[in-house]
């Protein structure tokens, strides 16, 4: 795919810069591959896959940590399915009007609108519940399915890549979309980290402290939509939510502090993506599924580790010293 049919609306200077960046990354990996004799690094699509995978493995657990600890793990799944509707909208528009918009762009837009809708619904009606999530989830998927079936022609053939993800279809253009999403998500989380943490940990106290909880909820949902669409390329609609949840759950087993939990979830997600992509190349298995299975294996490992850890802690620190008693250690 040439750079000329780049996403509509992307101005050319930053686009070219990103293009150059990804080109350099690709060359770097190719050299490393030649040096070490790693066969899979001969292919440009693998370079893109590793780049996209690494970026996903930073932003998914980053957002997922806030979601999981607010007991909103399901929202990722709901938004992924609406993102599928977004893909269908993109394909539909392209087929009808002969345009060349990337379906990932329409997916981001639709998912972010859906994210806002979920928030507004839960603000107007009761609090979050699985029922409203389930409704949004199935509505999104139904809309996608209907739009695609309305399209005559060979469109349905390309649907699998959105449902299950595909390493080989990570074009340079798609990688650029992901880099842009990554930068946006990282910047916003860095800027609002304290507020998000406060709202996540103690919503009432956050309100008393003057934070606009609904506003941060909306922001969180929008960020989730961006991450979900970004991760969809490799993970697919059906499995993308796993990246938001599984590494975070693993990290919670072993981490003591919130900072540690964030860091551990990113490290474990990187491990899952790296091993998962490599295995999926080696055995020609689907990447999304392989990554999730590796992540779950890591999760089981951390549960065992966490059990050992807490047993040690109990042995060391029982009873927890009260203020009047002396400290045990």
């Amino acid at each position, binding site marked *: 795919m040439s750079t000329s049919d780049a996403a509509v609306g992307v101005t050319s200077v930053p686009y070219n810069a990103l293009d150059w960046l990804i080109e350099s990354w690709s060359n770097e990996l190719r050299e490393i591959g030649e040096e070490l004799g790693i066969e899979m690094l001969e292919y440009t699509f693998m370079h893109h896959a590793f780049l996209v995978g690494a970026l996903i493995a930073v932003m998914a657990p980053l957002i997922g940590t806030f979601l999981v600890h607010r007991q909103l793990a399901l929202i990722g799944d709901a938004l992924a399915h609406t993102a599928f509707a977004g893909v269908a909208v993109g394909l539909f528009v392209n087929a009808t009007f002969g345009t060349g918009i990337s379906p990932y762009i329409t997916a981001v837009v639709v998912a972010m609108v859906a994210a806002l809708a979920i928030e507004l619904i839960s603000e107007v009606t009761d609090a979050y519940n699985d029922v409203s999530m389930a409704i949004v989830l199935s509505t999104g998927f139904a809309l996608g399915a209907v739009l695609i079936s309305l399209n005559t022609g060979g469109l349905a053939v390309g649907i699998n890549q959105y449902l299950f993800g595909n390493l080989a279809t990570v074009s340079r253009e798609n990688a650029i979309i992901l880099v842009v999403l990554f930068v946006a998500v990282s910047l916003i989380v860095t800027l609002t980290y304290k507020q998000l943490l406060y709202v996540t940990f103690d919503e*009432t106290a956050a309100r008393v402290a003057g934070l606009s909880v609904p506003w941060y909820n909306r922001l969180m949902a929008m960020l989730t939509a961006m991450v979900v669409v970004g991760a969809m390329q490799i993970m697919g609609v059906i499995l993308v939510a796993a990246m938001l949840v599984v590494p975070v759950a693993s990290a919670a087993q072993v981490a003591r502090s919130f900072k540690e939990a964030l860091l551990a979830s990113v490290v474990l997600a990187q491990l899952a993506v790296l091993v998962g992509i490599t295995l999926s190349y080696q055995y020609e298995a689907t990447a999304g599924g392989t990554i999730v299975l590796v992540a779950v294996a890591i999760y089981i490992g951390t549960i065992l580790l966490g059990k050992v850890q807490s047993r040690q802690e109990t042995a060391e620190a029982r009873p927890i010293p009260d203020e009047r008693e002396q400290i045990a250690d």
Partner: protein
Amino acid sequence: MAHDSKQYREELVAVRGVSFGYTASPVLTDISLTVDRGEYVGIVGPNGSGKSTLLRLLLGLHEPDSGSVDLLGQPARAFAEREKVGYVAQDVTENTKRMPITVAEVVLMGRFPHAGFGRVTSDDRERAHEALETVGIHHLADRKITQLSGGQRQRAYIARALAGEAELLVLDEPTVGVDAESVDAFFDLLGDLNDDGMTVLLVEHDIGAVIEHTSRVVCLNRELYFDGDPVTFAESDALDRAFGTNVRRDDEVVVS
């Protein structure tokens, strides 16, 4: 009445003729009370009497159906100097959140309103550490908050308020799930903070503890039954009227 009557009167909280209901039936009817700087006020009343709702109203979390609520001289709903109010919620002693987070991280949150979108500085960390020392649990700073006992966790949340330089400390049923011995130590801590100038306002089910430790009792059951000093409260029949006469009163203690 006020803890240190030498001080000039400054109203931190002013509730004027407030009525409020979540649905059509009112939870609170025509409540008026003011809290001056330096006071130590305990709000008592039976379950469902609207105590917690009153707290939420004066924190600006709800809009009253009628009447007005001022917090530090501003309407509570539009109140901007949020860091001056420290709130400890009712359920913090329960171990519901499984979130991995340390005591130090929780206390540091008290600094977040000061930091805004900026970075947390070493000065912020220093203040958080001092707050932990004040409440006597600095040795637990690196523990997970979930590993603490109910009483210790309660102190951690007070430390968070102190770290935020709160001038008014609002606590909702702070001793639920805290063992009896820790309850005494906890009220001693609140007394010390009050001696140092902190205004304390708490809702409490343990009427004996309120009479023993606070300097002013507000008795509530949808409407105001009593507002005055603990000794007069203990001698009055306000409790009977508020709770209804068929309520067992074995909670009560004799005030020295």
